[in-house]
Structures are given as C-alpha cells and as structure tokens.
C-alpha cells in the first residue's frame, strides 16, 4: 500500500503522547504539522533520526510547524525513550488498536508489525502537502521536510 500522497486530506487522529495526555491532529489546525512515522523507539537509526529532528525544533518553530513523532510503541516506552534522548517534542503511541493511524496513512508494515519510516508535511487546513517513504533502515534526514516547508511558505498557504 502506498503512503498518502500530496493533495490527500490527512486523516485526523487522537493518540496518547504521555500516560495522561492525548494529542489530536486537529489540535494543530492553522499550523503546519510535520508527522514523522518511525519503526521503533531505541533502534539505532530511529534514534539518530529523532535526535536530528530534536536539534531542529527551533527551525520548525520559526516556520510555525509542529513536529510529531509516531510509532507503535506504548506511552511508557516513549516516555523512557524521550527522557533518555532528551527529546522535546511529542512522541505519539499508535498502540491500541496497534498501527491504526499508520494504516490510514499507508505507513504500516504488516509483516513486522511496525510503522514505516515515513514523513508527512500537513498544511494549516489539514491537507498533506508532501510525503516521503524512506527505506526503513535509512535515516531520511530533514532536507525534504524543509524543502516542503519552504514551498508552503512561498505559496502563502501557511498561516
């Protein structure tokens, strides 16, 4: 199954980010959202990818973009991972029913039961403006995300 392409409405979701907090995509209407699906907390490549994004939160903020990480790990696992890596952005638990949000974005790996390594830039109106499916073992970096954010800014669709 292909991941959602540019132009598709981004399916709304509401997932736990901590044991007592939930985050919905619609919370960020009026803002750009960078949704980063990654296969698992703790695996070395993901660690690097999330560590990299963690360093760019200032840049994302400048672009009025909210970064959300998402995997099938549970909230306690996310909490331990975020504390260990000093991550300062929400990690969402697509945990129960497992992978249901990832499936809606075409970003679920049935055989392994984990999410793909897939990136989505969603505009202020909730439309996917850019998406990218990375080989699962490769840290995709952030150049594509920033190119997409630049394109949004140029079009003036960003609030």
């Amino acid at each position, binding site marked *: 199954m292909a991941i959602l392409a540019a132009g598709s409405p981004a399916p709304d979701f509401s997932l736990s980010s901590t044991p007592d907090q939930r985050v919905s995509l619609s919370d960020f209407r009026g803002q750009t959202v960078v949704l980063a699906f990654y296969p698992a907390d703790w695996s070395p490549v993901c660690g690097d*990818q999330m*560590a990299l994004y963690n*360093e760019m939160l200032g*840049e994302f903020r400048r672009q009025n973009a909210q970064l959300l990480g998402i995997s099938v790990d549970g909230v306690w696992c996310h909490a331990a991972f975020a504390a260990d*890596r*000093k991550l300062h952005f929400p990690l969402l638990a697509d945990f129960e029913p497992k992978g249901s949000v990832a499936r809606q974005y075409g970003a679920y790996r049935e055989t392994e039961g984990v999410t793909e390594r897939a990136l989505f830039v969603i505009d202020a109106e909730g439309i996917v403006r850019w998406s990218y499916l990375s080989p699962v073992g490769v*840290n995709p*970096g*952030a*150049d594509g995300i920033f190119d997409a954010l630049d394109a949004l800014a140029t079009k003036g669709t960003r609030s």
Partner: protein
Amino acid sequence: MTLRRPVSELDHIAGDADAPLTLVEYGDYQCPHCAAADPLVRAAQKALGRDLRFVFRNFPLTEMHPAAEPAAEFAESAAVQGKFWQAHDAIFAWSRRHGPPSLGPDAFAAIAQSLELDGAQLEEDIENHRYLERIRDDFNGGVRSGVNGTPSFFINGTRFDGGADELADALRALL
C-alpha cells in the same frame, strides 16, 4: 544527495584552493564516530597530498552530546587565534584518549594550554557564545544538504555513503 552550500572563504579549509578534490565533513566533536574517523581523514589527506582540500563544518547534536557545541565554540575561537586545525585535531585526539564524555571545561583548559592558546579569550568567547551563530549556520546548511548524522562526508559536492576507512580509495578513484 548534494552539498547545497558551496565551499567558500568562510569555511575552514586545509589544502590548496585549486585542488581537484574537495572533501567536506559535517562533524560533532563529541561524537565517537567522528573521533574515530578523524585519523582516517588525516590519512586520506596524507595519501592525496596537494590533490585534496579538506573542509570541516560543525554539526553538533547538542542534546545527545552536551559538550559538542562548546567544543565547536572552542575550535572556532581557536581559529581566530590562528589555530583552528590544531584545536580540531586536539579535541578529537582528547576524545579518543579519554573518551567523548570527558570533553568539557577541564579538557578545553588542558588543550588550550598545550596549544599555547589565550585561555582567557577562549573562555570569554565560549561564555558569550561569540561564534555560536556560525556553528548554527553550519548545522542548518548541513540539514539542507541532507546531513542526517555524523560524520557525513561530501566528495566534490556529492554525498559519500561509505565508511571513513574507504575515503582515501574513493578519493583516489576520482583523480
């Protein structure tokens, strides 16, 4: 993947401006892999001689490596005292000898002393983050070029995905 920010006079460059080969590294002074790659870069420089110029740009992962940014500030401050490469080499050498976690004010003081740098000036520069903007510029430029971790190498503007031990051969093959 290509290098979006061309090498310029703002960069730290070792080697001839008209060398046919340019190696750009995005590195983090507290990253163990960068410390391990450093002698291999030096070996490539030795092997290629005047055919290679080497450029180092900062890519500190500050949350993971709390001393990476101060170390970069140290090296940038040393650059103003005319000793960038000495500081760069000494920081990585320190990291290899004592381990990356040992980098910090004591290490910087020892390195400053051994390189006969003006320690008070270094401390002041680091404290006032005098060269932080340049370091962040390096970082952001790297992100735009697809740098996803450290060390990341570009040979003549093209991303090199092999190991640091393969650098010398990969460079020689382009001559």
